[in-house]
Protein backbone atom coordinates (compact mmCIF):
# COMPACT_ATOMS: atom_id res chain seq x y z
CA UNK A 1 0.00 0.00 0.00
CA UNK A 2 1.28 3.34 -1.00
CA UNK A 3 -0.08 6.82 -0.70
CA UNK A 4 -1.05 8.22 -4.05
CA UNK A 5 -2.48 11.40 -5.45
CA UNK A 6 -4.58 11.04 -8.54
CA UNK A 7 -5.86 14.01 -10.46
CA UNK A 8 -8.40 13.54 -13.19
CA UNK A 9 -9.66 16.06 -15.69
CA UNK A 10 -13.14 15.27 -16.91
CA UNK A 11 -15.00 16.61 -19.86
CA UNK A 12 -16.50 19.96 -18.78
CA UNK A 13 -19.88 19.07 -20.28
CA UNK A 14 -20.45 16.32 -17.72
CA UNK A 15 -23.08 17.13 -15.19
CA UNK A 16 -22.65 17.05 -11.45
CA UNK A 17 -24.39 13.69 -11.14
CA UNK A 18 -22.26 12.14 -13.88
CA UNK A 19 -19.14 13.44 -12.18
CA UNK A 20 -20.26 11.81 -8.96
CA UNK A 21 -20.73 8.54 -10.80
CA UNK A 22 -17.29 8.86 -12.31
CA UNK A 23 -15.76 9.53 -8.91
CA UNK A 24 -17.48 6.43 -7.59
CA UNK A 25 -15.92 4.49 -10.41
CA UNK A 26 -12.55 5.63 -9.14
CA UNK A 27 -13.08 5.21 -5.42
CA UNK A 28 -14.91 1.91 -5.41
CA UNK A 29 -12.09 -0.18 -6.88
CA UNK A 30 -9.75 1.40 -4.35
CA UNK A 31 -11.74 0.25 -1.36
CA UNK A 32 -12.47 -3.05 -3.09
CA UNK A 33 -8.75 -3.69 -3.43
CA UNK A 34 -8.26 -3.10 0.25
CA UNK A 35 -7.11 0.47 -0.18
CA UNK A 36 -8.40 3.58 1.43
CA UNK A 37 -9.74 6.81 0.00
CA UNK A 38 -8.35 9.59 2.12
CA UNK A 39 -9.61 12.70 0.47
CA UNK A 40 -11.64 13.70 -2.56
CA UNK A 41 -11.28 17.26 -3.70
CA UNK A 42 -13.36 18.79 -6.43
CA UNK A 43 -11.57 21.72 -7.91
CA UNK A 44 -14.49 22.39 -10.21
CA UNK A 45 -14.36 23.67 -13.71
CA UNK A 46 -11.06 25.25 -14.61
CA UNK A 47 -9.56 26.71 -17.69
CA UNK A 48 -6.98 24.46 -19.33
CA UNK A 49 -3.59 25.91 -20.14
CA UNK A 50 -3.90 24.39 -23.58
CA UNK A 51 -6.59 22.70 -25.58
CA UNK A 52 -7.13 19.00 -24.93
CA UNK A 53 -9.42 17.16 -27.32
CA UNK A 54 -10.92 20.45 -28.44
CA UNK A 55 -11.88 21.39 -24.89
CA UNK A 56 -10.77 24.62 -23.33
CA UNK A 57 -12.04 23.77 -19.84
CA UNK A 58 -12.04 20.72 -17.70
CA UNK A 59 -13.59 19.54 -14.47
CA UNK A 60 -10.81 18.68 -12.05
CA UNK A 61 -11.05 16.03 -9.38
CA UNK A 62 -8.22 15.25 -7.03
CA UNK A 63 -8.18 12.04 -5.02
CA UNK A 64 -5.79 11.08 -2.28
CA UNK A 65 -5.73 7.42 -1.58
CA UNK A 66 -3.83 4.44 -0.31
CA UNK A 67 -3.76 1.70 -2.90
CA UNK A 68 -1.80 -1.34 -3.89
CA UNK A 69 0.56 -0.41 -6.74
CA UNK A 70 -1.05 -2.90 -9.10
CA UNK A 71 -4.28 -0.94 -8.92
CA UNK A 72 -2.62 2.16 -10.32
CA UNK A 73 -1.88 0.37 -13.57
CA UNK A 74 -5.45 -0.83 -13.75
CA UNK A 75 -6.74 2.67 -12.99
CA UNK A 76 -4.54 4.07 -15.72
CA UNK A 77 -5.93 1.58 -18.20
CA UNK A 78 -9.50 2.48 -17.29
CA UNK A 79 -8.89 6.20 -17.55
CA UNK A 80 -7.48 5.71 -21.00
CA UNK A 81 -10.55 3.82 -22.12
CA UNK A 82 -12.91 6.31 -20.53
CA UNK A 83 -13.97 8.87 -23.10
CA UNK A 84 -15.00 11.46 -20.53
CA UNK A 85 -11.53 11.60 -18.99
CA UNK A 86 -9.47 14.24 -20.74
CA UNK A 87 -6.34 13.74 -18.67
CA UNK A 88 -5.23 11.93 -15.58
CA UNK A 89 -2.13 11.82 -13.44
CA UNK A 90 -1.26 9.56 -10.54
CA UNK A 91 1.76 10.26 -8.44
CA UNK A 92 3.17 8.81 -5.27
CA UNK A 93 2.37 11.39 -2.63
CA UNK A 94 5.34 13.00 -0.90
CA UNK A 95 6.21 11.15 2.28
CA UNK A 96 6.51 13.85 4.90
CA UNK A 97 2.81 14.31 5.19
CA UNK A 98 1.01 17.53 5.58
CA UNK A 99 1.86 20.14 3.06
CA UNK A 100 -0.17 23.31 3.00
CA UNK A 101 -3.00 22.43 0.66
CA UNK A 102 -3.00 24.73 -2.27
CA UNK A 103 -5.71 24.67 -4.82
CA UNK A 104 -4.38 25.68 -8.19
CA UNK A 105 -5.25 29.12 -9.40
CA UNK A 106 -6.76 30.33 -6.16
CA UNK A 107 -7.78 33.82 -7.08
CA UNK A 108 -4.60 33.89 -9.11
CA UNK A 109 -5.59 33.84 -12.73
CA UNK A 110 -7.25 36.99 -13.90
CA UNK A 111 -10.89 36.15 -13.43
CA UNK A 112 -10.72 32.51 -14.42
CA UNK A 113 -14.42 32.11 -14.95
CA UNK A 114 -17.00 32.48 -12.27
CA UNK A 115 -16.02 29.41 -10.36
CA UNK A 116 -17.54 29.84 -6.94
CA UNK A 117 -14.54 28.94 -4.79
CA UNK A 118 -13.44 25.44 -5.83
CA UNK A 119 -15.72 23.19 -3.91
CA UNK A 120 -13.80 21.00 -1.52
CA UNK A 121 -15.79 17.98 -0.56
CA UNK A 122 -14.63 15.71 2.14
CA UNK A 123 -16.02 12.26 2.19
Amino acid sequence: MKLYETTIIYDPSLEETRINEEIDKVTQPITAAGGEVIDVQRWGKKKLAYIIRKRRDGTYVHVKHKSPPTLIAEMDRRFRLNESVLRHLSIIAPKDEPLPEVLPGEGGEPDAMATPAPAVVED
Partner: protein
Amino acid sequence: MAREGESRSFRRKFCKLCLDKVERIDYKDDRRLARFITDRGKIVPRRISGTCARHQSQITEAVKRARILALLPFTTDQYR
Protein backbone atom coordinates in the same frame (compact mmCIF):
# COMPACT_ATOMS: atom_id res chain seq x y z
CA MET B 1 13.24 37.85 -14.61
CA ALA B 2 16.06 38.93 -12.38
CA ARG B 3 18.69 39.79 -14.90
CA GLU B 4 21.69 41.29 -13.22
CA GLY B 5 23.19 44.09 -15.21
CA GLU B 6 26.90 44.87 -15.17
CA SER B 7 26.22 48.20 -13.53
CA ARG B 8 24.69 46.44 -10.58
CA SER B 9 28.17 45.59 -9.24
CA PHE B 10 28.58 42.19 -7.64
CA ARG B 11 25.24 41.34 -6.26
CA ARG B 12 24.93 37.72 -5.52
CA LYS B 13 21.89 35.94 -6.75
CA PHE B 14 20.05 34.08 -4.11
CA CYS B 15 17.49 31.36 -4.13
CA LYS B 16 14.14 32.97 -3.52
CA LEU B 17 12.67 29.70 -2.38
CA CYS B 18 15.34 29.25 0.24
CA LEU B 19 14.63 32.74 1.46
CA ASP B 20 10.98 31.87 1.89
CA LYS B 21 12.00 28.60 3.52
CA VAL B 22 9.95 26.60 1.07
CA GLU B 23 10.29 22.94 1.93
CA ARG B 24 8.58 21.46 -1.03
CA ILE B 25 7.18 22.75 -4.25
CA ASP B 26 3.83 21.35 -5.15
CA TYR B 27 2.83 20.70 -8.72
CA LYS B 28 -0.65 21.91 -7.83
CA ASP B 29 0.67 25.32 -6.88
CA ASP B 30 0.57 26.73 -10.39
CA ARG B 31 0.76 30.33 -9.29
CA ARG B 32 4.08 29.84 -7.58
CA LEU B 33 5.39 27.78 -10.47
CA ALA B 34 4.33 30.44 -12.94
CA ARG B 35 7.13 32.60 -11.59
CA PHE B 36 9.65 30.08 -12.83
CA ILE B 37 8.55 29.79 -16.41
CA THR B 38 9.09 32.27 -19.18
CA ASP B 39 6.21 33.82 -21.05
CA ARG B 40 6.84 31.18 -23.67
CA GLY B 41 6.31 28.49 -21.08
CA LYS B 42 9.93 27.43 -20.74
CA ILE B 43 11.44 26.64 -17.38
CA VAL B 44 13.74 29.47 -16.32
CA PRO B 45 17.31 28.18 -15.96
CA ARG B 46 19.14 28.46 -12.67
CA ARG B 47 21.67 30.82 -14.10
CA ILE B 48 18.89 33.34 -14.63
CA SER B 49 16.65 32.78 -11.67
CA GLY B 50 19.40 32.04 -9.17
CA THR B 51 17.54 29.12 -7.64
CA CYS B 52 19.56 26.58 -5.74
CA ALA B 53 20.04 23.09 -7.17
CA ARG B 54 17.65 21.47 -4.78
CA HIS B 55 14.81 23.82 -5.47
CA GLN B 56 15.49 23.90 -9.18
CA SER B 57 15.07 20.18 -9.49
CA GLN B 58 11.84 20.39 -7.52
CA ILE B 59 10.62 23.16 -9.80
CA THR B 60 11.45 21.11 -12.86
CA GLU B 61 9.53 18.12 -11.67
CA ALA B 62 6.58 20.19 -10.50
CA VAL B 63 6.36 22.17 -13.73
CA LYS B 64 6.39 19.01 -15.77
CA ARG B 65 3.59 17.54 -13.74
CA ALA B 66 1.60 20.75 -13.87
CA ARG B 67 1.95 20.72 -17.64
CA ILE B 68 0.43 17.28 -17.88
CA LEU B 69 -2.55 18.54 -15.93
CA ALA B 70 -2.85 21.61 -18.14
CA LEU B 71 -2.23 23.89 -15.20
CA LEU B 72 0.74 25.31 -17.08
CA PRO B 73 1.34 25.48 -20.82
CA PHE B 74 3.92 23.42 -22.68
CA THR B 75 4.20 26.30 -25.07
CA THR B 76 2.18 29.31 -26.06
CA ASP B 77 2.43 28.74 -29.78
CA GLN B 78 -1.05 27.49 -30.30
CA TYR B 79 -2.65 30.79 -29.43
CA ARG B 80 -0.77 32.86 -31.94
